[in-house]
């Protein structure tokens, strides 16, 4: 099924296409404005930038409860297969869990995170909300429940398969890969972890830093 994808590109043939794998779940919403700013900055430097919806995300006609990480991995690979010219994949946070099946000339990851960590935060939000509502639940009881039925976690209805795949998922080896953290130094860019915040706003300087780092990595890899 066709999913919506946001594409920002210069006129003419782009130097390469930067294919974004956004953070997952709530973190995607919190990061989106800054990612799109980075995409505009990349387009100004001659790159095409693509941010696809995967099944169950954003405007997708598919229900989130009907997908798992495997489906996202293959859907992301399919998006990549439809792009002409060289591709650099730019994955943020949980995007790094679904970026490895795609064919690309290079990978770039910002603050990659394991699925177990994302799942624990979602489960804890549910436990915390339950407690406010006077209901007793625990990480264990919720995970037990998730074996047999979809679980509503912080607004996301996750299938048993999604919960299982998240619990054990780690970013996979890809090459060539540049991984950057937030902070200072060669392996980092300056910025704020907007994906952790309830009211993230946007970070224009970080968006420019993301674009500049990806462009430099493209040159290092001899892509453009």
């Amino acid at each position, binding site marked *: 099924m066709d999913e919506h994808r946001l594409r920002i590109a210069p006129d003419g043939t782009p130097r390469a296409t930067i294919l974004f794998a956004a953070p997952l779940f*709530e973190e995607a919403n919190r990061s989106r404005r800054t990612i799109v700013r980075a995409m505009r900055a990349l387009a100004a430097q001659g790159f095409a930038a693509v941010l696809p919806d995967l099944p169950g995300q954003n405007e997708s006609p598919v229900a989130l409860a009907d997908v798992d990480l495997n489906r996202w991995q293959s859907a992301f690979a399919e998006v990549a297969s439809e792009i002409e010219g060289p591709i650099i994949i730019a994955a943020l946070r949980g995007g790094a869990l679904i970026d490895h099946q795609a064919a690309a000339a290079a990978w770039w990851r910002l603050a990659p995170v394991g699925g177990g*960590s994302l799942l*624990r*935060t*979602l*489960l*804890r*939000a549910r*436990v*915390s*909300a339950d*407690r*406010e509502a006077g209901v007793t639940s*625990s*990480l264990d009881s919720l995970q037990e429940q998730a074996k047999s039925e979809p679980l509503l976690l*912080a607004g996301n209805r996750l299938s048993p398969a999604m919960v299982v795949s998240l619990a054990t998922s780690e970013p996979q080896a890809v090459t060539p890969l540049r991984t950057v953290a937030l902070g200072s130094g060669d392996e980092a860019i300056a910025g*704020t*972890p907007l994906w*952790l*915040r*309830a*009211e*993230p*706003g946007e970070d224009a300087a970080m968006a420019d830093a993301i674009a500049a780092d990806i462009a430099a990595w493209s040159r290092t890899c001899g892509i453009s």
Partner: protein
Amino acid sequence: MTEAHKVDATLRALLADVLGLGDERAAALTEDSGLFGELPEFDSMAVATVLTEMEDRLGILIDDDDVDGEIFETYGNLLRFAERKVQG
């Protein structure tokens, strides 16, 4: 920097990141500063994020049976909880 200072600094930076407090407000937190119920940014999602970030940044494991509402009442309570976990 002593271990206790390190935990305090890590925890302030973490709250600044998660709650978007900015460095000044984070630095101004005292023992008695109220968190959950006092800071509008500190909702149930923020509680969850703070716990997971504490695990990642302090290198600890938090058993959620140990977590009750009290540790989020004040900054001092949260700091003492973190220090206990770091000491094992």
